[in-house]
């Protein structure tokens, strides 16, 4: 894909989530730098999520990170639900609770920019959230089963189904 501003390849894909509809931008490194510096200078609240991301990326670029390295960060995927960080940026929705853990590095500056805070100060579930590993395991097993069915690996799928049932039965 070409940059929207010039003929260089677009290596930055930005989704603006402010305003009515998500707006997608595809830019080369130079134009992305220009765009991101602009939007991160906007007054608080105007840039929203894109500005947070922008700031984060500009900081990254300042420590002379290459576009390839950033693209790599974008291609990182969640081992539980399979979503890549790029997919999240395109649609603005995360894939599963585990994304908050595996995309911590990318999400933290974003969250800080949206909320101005990074730590929850409200109520907590009365029951202590235990066994979260087991729950993420369930999400992963269900996904693997779905994929096995799609690939017509029925033996694998039935093994996974048994494993899901066992894990569910273990639940507190």
């Amino acid at each position: 894909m070409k940059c929207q501003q010039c003929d260089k390849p677009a290596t930055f894909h930005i989704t603006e989530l402010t305003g009515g509809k998500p707006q997608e931008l595809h830019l080369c490194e130079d134009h992305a730098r220009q765009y991101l510096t602009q939007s991160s200078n906007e007054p608080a609240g105007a840039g929203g999520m894109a500005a947070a991301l922008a700031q984060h990326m500009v900081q990254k670029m300042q420590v002379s990170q290459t576009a390839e390295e950033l693209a790599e960060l974008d291609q990182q995927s969640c081992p539980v639900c399979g979503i890549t960080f790029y997919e999240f940026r395109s649609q603005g929705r995360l894939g599963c609770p585990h994304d908050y853990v595996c995309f911590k590095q990318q999400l933290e500056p974003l969250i800080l920019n949206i909320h101005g805070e990074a730590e929850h100060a409200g109520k907590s579930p009365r029951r202590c959230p235990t066994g979260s590993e087991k729950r993420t395991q369930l999400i992963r097993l269900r996904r693997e089963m779905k994929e096995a069915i799609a690939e017509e690996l029925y033996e694998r799928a039935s093994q996974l189904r048994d494993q899901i049932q066992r894990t569910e039965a273990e639940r507190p």
Partner: protein
Amino acid sequence: MVDAVELDDLTKNSGEWLRGGGPEADIVISSRIRLARNLAEFPFISRAAPQDRTQIEKLMRGCVAELKESGELLYFELEQLEGVDRQLLVERHLISRELAEAQGARAVAIDHRETFSLMINEEDHLRMQVLHSGLDLQSVWEHINRIDDLIESRVTYAFHERLGYLTACPTNVGTGMRVSVMLHLPALVITRQIDKVFRSLQKISLAVRGLYGEGSQAMGDFYQISNQITLGRSEEELIKQVGDIVPVIIDYERQARDFLIKESHENLHDRVSRAYGILRTAQTITSEETMHLLSSVRMGVNLGLIHDVQIPLVNELFIHTQPAHLQKLTGGPLETSDRNIERARYLRRLLNKEDGDGGAGKN
């Protein structure tokens, strides 16, 4: 589980929040809090397979059956509802447009008074809301917090020690809470001060939306004011942030109304009377014009310029004259032009009945 009779009953009545009571009810229509919650062992909706959605819906249906919140809850599976019925629920503020227009297994549970609704498989697995009449955030919070605890005792929420309740979009993470107050601000619109108010609200990170939330236009001079931040503050702090600013806006609106009464009493009285006259006599009328005129009438009643109609009826007309309600109330699908004729007929019938003599045009 869907019961057409129940839905028809719903149509004829109106929700508790429209009764026009509660503190500051001349300006504050309703107080609302919604909580976004997800189940820990399923992917979020965007990555959920159809089987996941079905399983979530089934699980929550079982949970809802045990809730018994002020009597048994009504439960509607959206896939089994006709388009007009889904639209009806949107018009009543019981579900979002997003839920109405989505695909796959999804549902809503509603209490009989329509103060509580729980959407299943919207942007998050669970979106629950409590809606009360007037400015009443504290009791809204107590109400929804109680239900949240009840649900949480039956399912495991996705929760992170440091980030709080985990949501599909990071803009809702933390408390997952949106506190909003719906205000009727016609005088600030007439005196062109409304933009100034909005700009100052945005500076303190409060959002302003129209009658039907995100992306909707401010029909009938109704505006919802809500918190934007959901993380790093407690629920009580978020409620206070919105709750503290509302009286200030109410005060602005009252000042604007006083100004209009003092400085251009004839103009204001004329505007209100003409609006009332058109609503009582028109032969065909669009939804937009109806909303616009009802807004003037509502203000006129509150300022004592109109005496023979009550606020609950005016509130109800805002909802009952919208497309899906009108079609349900007048018994069938209608083309836009027929709908405008039916709407005018419906308005004439209800507004001329109110003063007891049934004669159109009396003023």
